């Protein structure tokens, strides 16, 4: 049984890896790079909290 589990673990590992890499490539080819790296720190705080008493 453990031999089968070893094979299953290899197969599942490859599957999760392929799913991630395939999605990464798809997203990178679909969306503009500038949009993907457009996140900026602190934008929410700037509008929602003034950090003043």
């Amino acid at each position, binding site marked *: 049984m453990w031999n089968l589990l070893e094979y299953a673990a290899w197969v599942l590992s490859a599957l999760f890896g392929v799913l991630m890499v395939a999605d990464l490539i798809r997203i990178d080819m679909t969306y503009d790079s500038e949009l993907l790296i457009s*996140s*900026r720190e602190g934008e929410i705080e700037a509008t929602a909290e003034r950090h003043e008493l």
Partner: protein
Amino acid sequence: MEDFTSTAAGTDRIRLARVLGPSHVWALGVGIVLVGEYMGWNFSVGKGGMIAGLMACWVAGLLYTCVAMIDSEVTSTVAAAGGQYAQAKHIVGPLMAFNVGLFLVMAYTMLEAANAITVGFLLDTVAGMQGQAGLNQQPFIVLSIMFLAWLNYRGVLATLTFNLVITAIAFIAIIALFVSVQFGASAVPLDFSAITSDPLPYGWVGIIASLHFGLWYYLGIEGTCQAAEEVRSPARSLPYGTMAGIMTLLIAATMTWYICSGLMPWEYLGQAGTPLFDAARVTGNTGLMVLLFVGTAFATLASANGCINDASRAWFSMSRDRYLPSWFGAVHPVYRTPYRAIVFLVPIALIFALGAPLDQVVTFSILSGLLGYTFMTFNMVMFRNKWPLGKIKRGYVHPFHPLPTIVLLVLCSTAYLAVFLGYGTQLSAMMCFYIVASLWFHFRRYKFVRRGDQFTMPWPKPEGY
């Protein structure tokens, strides 16, 4: 385009999803740490005996209570992904921020690798109990990293909800073992006679040496603040989740020491691979054995899961400010996760999990964490000096300042000595690594940093500037 946020300038931006509550913060912090109750802490007993193990438990508990208090105040104010990296950037300066970011990434990636190694060890133990000795652990190590990375890739809410469930089960398992043994479910009675017959087998130096592994009870609770940019109300959720987390861990750590020290001789306990699971086996109760095996497996997975979350946020945050190549600072437009950072860190975790011995990986993680705690001490002093109480809004104000800072610094110094006693070479090698990395950042990388854009908190000018 409903997943995007339009700025005042009318441009579309993608940001991390704000979907988490205090329970997820608790799950992140306790999830990373609780594995330390299931394994690792017991080497402190091996270094100095039962009493040294208990003192390491409580002294390290005091250290981490200071960490949690200090971290709660600063992070409830600097609520950004990257946690202590973002704090260092705003309060100390870029070189410190770069180093703190590296501490975080290395500490969490090493811990993730250590957890994956432990999953393989656990399954090997089970296979051995079923007569299948010599299990190939590699596919299970790889699977645990790949599955959790995929989960992290798909979204933070599912990831930390998963962590909440398995962490709660692992915590309940410790309570169940404690209560069951107290009510006589164990075939072997609790025996603390070694406390009087063999109180300090290696003398007082054994207590200092044991502190190294005492950190393992709580290592990683500061990881809660990596979720700062993804919680709905950072000023409330982060202090609440972090303080609830450290209280949970103090209870779990004390119960763990009590049960394990009472059921097993300290000489065995000091070198056991899975002490809580072994304690359950000693009771002779099959139900407890199954429960503690499940608890061990869940605690290990929860820790690896939280580590992937935190390491990727730190890497993402540094890249967003161009401390590292900006390519890693991308957010997935659908899942709203730092997907490139998550994928990039997978092979690094795999290399350490498959190619490095467990104790070296763990020591590197502990040392990186310790450097981070040392940073917190002067970061806190500078924070209070530059922006005194009343100058800016804080979600939480920790009491007795600067006492927790002083206590933390003293305990960090003692922990360095403890690490030096056992792993002096690794300590020196790691310091060299960070010095070389700092030189690279100063001479080759800093020119790419967005110097103006990186300071994002709308604070008034600091005192004295």
